[in-house]
């Protein structure tokens, strides 16, 4: 009895302790649920206002440069090496597009007292290590040294935004790359449909005698109309050779007893805000910088 009690307490204690140490896999990328959010703040270290401002900064960055960001603010981390943790997190989530590796990960661990940036292969040019370091030293570390997490993160995010927007970096196959693909498929289908319509039209207008596409409809008369089935006789005259031909056409009309429609039903519920964003599997080569405070 005593034994079970002790083990229950131990398990609870373990659960309590382990809940506070984050592994890279424990970080939920909130951007996937809501494309306007970038900051994972599971311990509530940052205030909601700070998160909103940081998210807004990186939304602007993604809109104008295509650079995708993930911000993680946590207490203790495992592995406790800040670079190792951040790199694993970045690779695991796959921040950035795989074609351009334009991901940026910003990690703040209040337990290890370190901040670390990880830059994807593609943005090492616009955000070199030395610049990352400078942002941390000028804008973030002075605040972090006094435990001012909100101020430091906001200042850092704003500084990164400035640099990225000024960097004239633009990822060509940015946000609309997927949309372009869809557009091409759509265009292809449209062309196919148009082609089919034209082919059917040409066939129906082909004169059986001279072979020219010159048949013109000259008259139409209804033969019968019964139980929703309408039969008509169409007469065509070839404008090239004057040949006259006629065809039957069967069509179906609504008798009014079929369905009692209630107008178009627009279902589904809107709300809950943005759609989920996506990360594209970008890779990281160890770029970025880290500092302790």
């Amino acid at each position, binding site marked *: 009895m005593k034994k079970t009690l002790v083990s229950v307490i131990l398990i609870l204690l373990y659960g309590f302790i382990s809940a506070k140490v984050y592994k890279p896999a424990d970080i939920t990328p909130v951007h996937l649920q809501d494309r306007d959010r970038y900051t994972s703040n599971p311990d509530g270290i940052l205030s909601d206002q700070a998160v909103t401002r940081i998210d807004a900064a990186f939304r602007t960055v993604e809109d104008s440069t295509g650079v995708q960001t993930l911000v993680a603010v946590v207490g203790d981390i495992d592995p406790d090496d800040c*670079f190792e943790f951040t*790199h694993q997190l970045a690779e695991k989530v796959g921040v950035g597009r795989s074609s351009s590796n334009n991901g940026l990960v910003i990690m703040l661990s209040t337990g290890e007292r370190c901040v670390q940036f990880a830059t994807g292969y593609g943005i090492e040019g616009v955000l*070199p*290590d*030395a610049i*990352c*370091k*400078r942002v941390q*030293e000028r804008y973030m570390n002075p605040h972090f040294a006094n435990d001012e997490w909100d101020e430091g993160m906001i200042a850092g995010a704003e500084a990164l935004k400035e640099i990225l927007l000024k960097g004239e970096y633009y990822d060509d196959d940015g946000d609309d790359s997927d949309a372009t693909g869809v557009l091409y498929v759509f265009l292809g289908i449209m062309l196919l449909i148009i082609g089919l319509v034209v082919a059917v039209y040409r066939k129906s207008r082909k004169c059986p005698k001279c072979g020219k596409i010159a048949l013109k409809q000259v008259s139409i008369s209804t033969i019968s109309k019964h139980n929703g089935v309408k039969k008509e006789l169409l007469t065509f005259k070839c404008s090239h050779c004057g040949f006259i031909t006629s065809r039957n056409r069967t069509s179906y009309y609504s008798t009014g007893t079929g369905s009692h429609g209630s107008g178009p039903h627009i279902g589904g519920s809107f709300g809950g805000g943005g759609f989920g964003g996506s990360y594209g599997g970008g890779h*990281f*080569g*160890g*770029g*970025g*910088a*880290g*500092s*302790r405070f």
Partner: protein
Amino acid sequence: MKKKSTWIIIAAIAVIVIWAIKVNNSMVTMEENVSKSWANVENVYQRRADLIPNLVNTVKGYAQHETSTFEAVVNARAKATSITVNPENMTADQLKEFQKAQNEIGGALGRLIAISESYPELKANENFKELQAQLEGTENRIAVERKNFNDEASKFNTYIRKFPQSIIAGMRGFEKKPYFEAEEGANKAPTVQF
């Protein structure tokens, strides 16, 4: 009846040949990946080597007397850049030699950076700080690319040593790739921290 068994044998041989070709091609692809990741390893080490002249010059401006440290870095660099390893037929010894030479650079750089502790002006120099940040980033890149190389080599090794692929590997002369070994305390690359 005789005809039927002939067909069965021909079909079996065809299946085996197709399988052998597939296995061979995946080995070629995997070896190519090992070579690619080796090229990345060499790139990041080269990147570090390229930082050295700048770094030495900057430190020299503030600490002229530390000549032995400068020499150690420059010599280690010269030695390391003379070693090249061909990923196609690299041996464990070659990789060990390469790693040893690179570790010497790492150690010498660590001592060079440590000098700054006794020269506050150097420590505050913007250029030096920038180089330090670059060096730190490069050390991280080295760690990443070394791990990538080990992963690719491990994939290749596992594949070629498993039965029955091992038969094809033996016939085609594919050999096990060596790994980077975890660094021991004394050889550990400098952790540049502020």
